[in-house]
């Protein structure tokens, strides 16, 4: 075979997606492949749709870009996140904390929640899950500490993500890129020369012509780089995101608080120096199209995604490929996955059929699976007239989703598909949070006596409570940690 290897990759777009991609590629590309970064100005405004909460996997993801946690904490207003507290959610006005947590214990081969379900049948209403989840209890009290290596204390089960502002992360990633000698060009696109699915070159407003073997288009939804015939799914709904920041003295809380409204939701995220307010409104559900308040940034968007984000020699990354409502950590989780997927599939020649097919397959799997999770926030009978609650952006009649819900409701089982972005714990917490009860539980959960079970559970609750009492409030922990980092590194 005489396929020429690729020599040049060009990444367009200076939003979070483009910056992540460049930083990651800079870390892993071998010497033979040149990387060009074209920073166009048009993209950052939709970055608020990445949301403000990251999953625990972001710690490793950032490490993979060469960015360590201390750097993030000291040069941005990033804070720790134990999850999201959902309030007045859905038609039943549910209220629960969806936290990050390592797997719950398994006794005698039976998943933990089956024991709670057993007790629920004995005395209904007495089997809430939250008392057994360390990270929820810490979130309730607004306390935080890093989980230790040692496995035998409740704190070790905590997992954490971050509260962050995309624009601040853009800055540290951009600074990181400056450390490597990547060619950076600040200019916008004037025209694109293509034949068929293939892009030959891109002409910039500064007159420069960029020819590359492979293009990464992180320019957002309206980009000239996106193939004019690219098919997309969704895009039936118009929503508005309103965003605002209010400063405070000390960090309040350790999870995002997200409250359902008549036509969407509104959230506050505690950062080091203030609260980020983000509201999502379904415009078709709004009685009158209320304009954003003073001091707010507002954008309109339509949740949607491309069927084939990778076409020919161009991959669309970020909001040009998919926009999802930042109700969960999905937007940032999926962006991370997009980049990891790209890195595993850096083309080896100008024939990119294998790479694009595989990328698109995994992309669709991941977004479908994330949609299942989002769908489970809505799959409750609603008598509301609001279009937000009645016709969510994800398909709630999807068979895979119905299978998951039916299995949980009928016997407390979490059906898993290949490489789902959300874990069994995430699902269990969500089902409990949504008030899904189960008809049956694993009969093997009956193999210990009720007294013994109650003993065990009460021990567990107590251990968690004692731990939570010992943990410092988020702001004190953060102040101590930053002081330590400063003393150590200057």
């Amino acid at each position, binding site marked *: 075979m005489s396929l020429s290897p690729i020599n040049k990759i060009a990444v367009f777009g200076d939003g979070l997606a483009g910056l992540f991609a460049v930083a990651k590629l800079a870390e892993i590309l071998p010497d033979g492949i040149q990387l060009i970064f074209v920073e166009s100005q048009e993209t950052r405004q939709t970055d608020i749709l990445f949301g403000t909460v990251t999953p625990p996997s972001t710690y490793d993801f950032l490490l993979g870009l060469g960015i360590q946690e201390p750097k993030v904490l000291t040069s941005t207003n990033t804070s720790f996140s134990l999850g999201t507290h959902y309030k007045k959610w859905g038609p039943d006005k549910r209220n629960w904390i969806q936290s990050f947590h390592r797997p719950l214990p398994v006794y005698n081969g039976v998943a933990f929640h089956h024991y709670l379900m057993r007790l629920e049948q004995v005395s209904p209403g007495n089997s809430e899950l939250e008392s057994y989840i360390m990270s929820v209890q810490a979130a309730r009290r607004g306390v935080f500490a890093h989980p230790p290596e040692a496995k035998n204390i409740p704190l070790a089960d905590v997992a954490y993500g971050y509260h962050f502002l995309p624009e601040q992360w853009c800055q540290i990633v951009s600074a990181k890129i400056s450390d490597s000698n990547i060619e950076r060009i600040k200019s916008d696109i004037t025209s694109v020369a293509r034949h068929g699915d293939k892009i030959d070159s891109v002409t910039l407003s500064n007159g420069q012509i960029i020819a590359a073997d492979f293009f990464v288009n992180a320019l957002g939804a309206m980009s000239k780089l996106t193939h004019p015939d690219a098919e997309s799914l969704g895009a039936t709904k118009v929503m508005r995101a309103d965003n605002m920041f209010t400063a405070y003295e000390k960090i309040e809380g350790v999870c995002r608080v997200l409250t359902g409204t008549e036509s969407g939701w509104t959230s506050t995220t505690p950062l080091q120096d203030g609260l980020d307010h983000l509201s999502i409104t379904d415009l078709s559900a709004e009685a009158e199209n209320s304009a954003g308040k003073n001091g707010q940034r507002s954008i309109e968007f339509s949740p949607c995604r491309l069927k084939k984000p990778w076409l020919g020699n161009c991959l669309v990354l970020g909001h040009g490929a998919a926009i999802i409502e930042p109700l969960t950590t999905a937007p940032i989780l999926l962006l991370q996955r997009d980049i990891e997927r790209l890195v595993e599939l850096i083309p080896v020649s100008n024939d990119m059929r294998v790479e694009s097919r595989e990328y698109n*397959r995994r992309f669709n799997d991941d977004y479908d699976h994330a949609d299942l999770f989002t769908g489970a926030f809505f799959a409750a009978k609603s008598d509301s007239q609001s279009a937000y609650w009645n016709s969510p952006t994800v398909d709630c009649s999807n068979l895979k989703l119905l*299978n998951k819900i039916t299995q949980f409701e009928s016997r407390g089982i979490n059906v898993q598909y290949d490489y789902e972005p959300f874990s069994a714990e995430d699902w269990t917490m969500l089902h409990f949070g949504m008030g899904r009860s189960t008809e049956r539980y694993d009969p093997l959960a009956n193999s210990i006596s009720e007294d013994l079970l109650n003993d065990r559970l009460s021990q567990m609750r107590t251990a968690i409570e004692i731990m939570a009492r010992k943990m410092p409030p988020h702001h004190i922990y953060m102040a101590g940690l930053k002081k330590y980092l400063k003393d150590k590194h200057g």
Partner: protein
Amino acid sequence: MTITRICILGGGTSGWMTAAGLSNKFNDLGVSIALVESDNIGTVGVGEATLPHIRFFNKTLGIDEREFMRETRATFKLGIEFCDWGKIGDSYIHPFGDYGEPIDGIDFHHFWLRLLQNGHKARLDDFSYPILAAESGKFQLPGPNNLEIGSNFGYAYQFDSGLFAKLLRRYSETHGVTRTEGKAVQTIQNPESGLIEAIVLEDGTRIEADLFIDCSGFRGVLIEQALNTGYEDWSEWLPCNRAVAVQCESAGPSLPYTRATARDAGWQWRIPLQHRTGNGYVYWNKYISDDEATHQLMSTLEGPALTEPKQLYFKTGKRRKLWNKNVVSIGLSGGFLEPLESTSIHLIQEGITALIELFPDTDFQESDAREYNRRMDLNFDRVRDFLLLHYVATQRDDTEMWRYFRQMTLPESLQEKMDAWSSRGYLLRYEQGVFLPPSWVAVMTGQNLLPNSYDPRANQISNKVLLDKTMAIKRDSLAALRQTPDHGDFLANYIGPAHR
């Protein structure tokens, strides 16, 4: 209502494995388990090579490994040696373990490909301790640190399936399973629901139950003869449809692996046990007669035959619904994939595990069966693709059968995998399924399907670092090998003097 009566029809490997697995779980929960088997009909009498998962099955039951090996005359299995598959004269071992170790998070085979494509003569097998051990007839149990070379591999067994069933029968009976001898001649179905209410034996005995597990072998007495569930025929992809099996005396040292040799119209297995060797020829009767197959088998035995050759007939595929109404089919009644990768017993185990997790109530909610069937279908589909890979990743075109495979249009799921591999050594992964990426690497490289390129990230490290790292892995593997005793000696020591 909860199920209180289970009837298992069939006392072959699947019947007794199911009885043991269920009695272990449900013995204390007021569930009665009855097993019916017919000595006259007997069992299929083959199925002696396993996958590492069997160890978890035994462990869950609390069966002691030494006792188990003594009783079933078992040997250790490090993998399967495939002869004459890629082309005549080739051979490779598919081990239960990884090749080398990832470097900077990138699978080792990419670095090996880099060496190869830059003109180094490196054998991937040299980076696999279980292959090296198998090649030199050595074995020892993996140590506790599974990151260490010499400990990061899996192993399975080769055993006498009749003796295994016997052991499980004893286990089951002490856990409350009642066994009835007799041939089921009639099934009583509820006229409305179609659920099976009872089976009637030749002597008139009537056995009622809420849940029936069909372990009656190829016949599928309940799932097919009674419920007419239907069969998905996969002979288009896996056309071998007959086998002839025979046991013979072993010659030479006891080997810790199974052998599968490709033949003109199928392939032949060799499974070494402590006291004898199992052999069989799996073939497509379109291209070879039964007599000729038997003749070829008998003329390649390593020692005198101990049994009469036994003829077996089958059709690859699976039941349209492995769980239908109140019947769950486990074992050959549920489906059959040729034993090229010793998957049948594993699929039995998967069936038992899924049944326990999805254990129904007397109202038999459709959702339970649907989820069970979804999982098992996925298992079967994925094994099918992996088996088919052996027949199509080959240069062989020397007989009609091999030419048939060369002309075949592959299932898309397999074609995609092979394309991604061939172009860049990329492996399409899945989470649910038996064969993990290293298995795919083993078969594809073993059968000369070599990628044109590799992950560009593997170029990040310098030549010197690469050579140092690979040398170190090889050195460690060889060092571990030197510490490893002969399989026969290890086994004798491990299980005590009763052996042989």
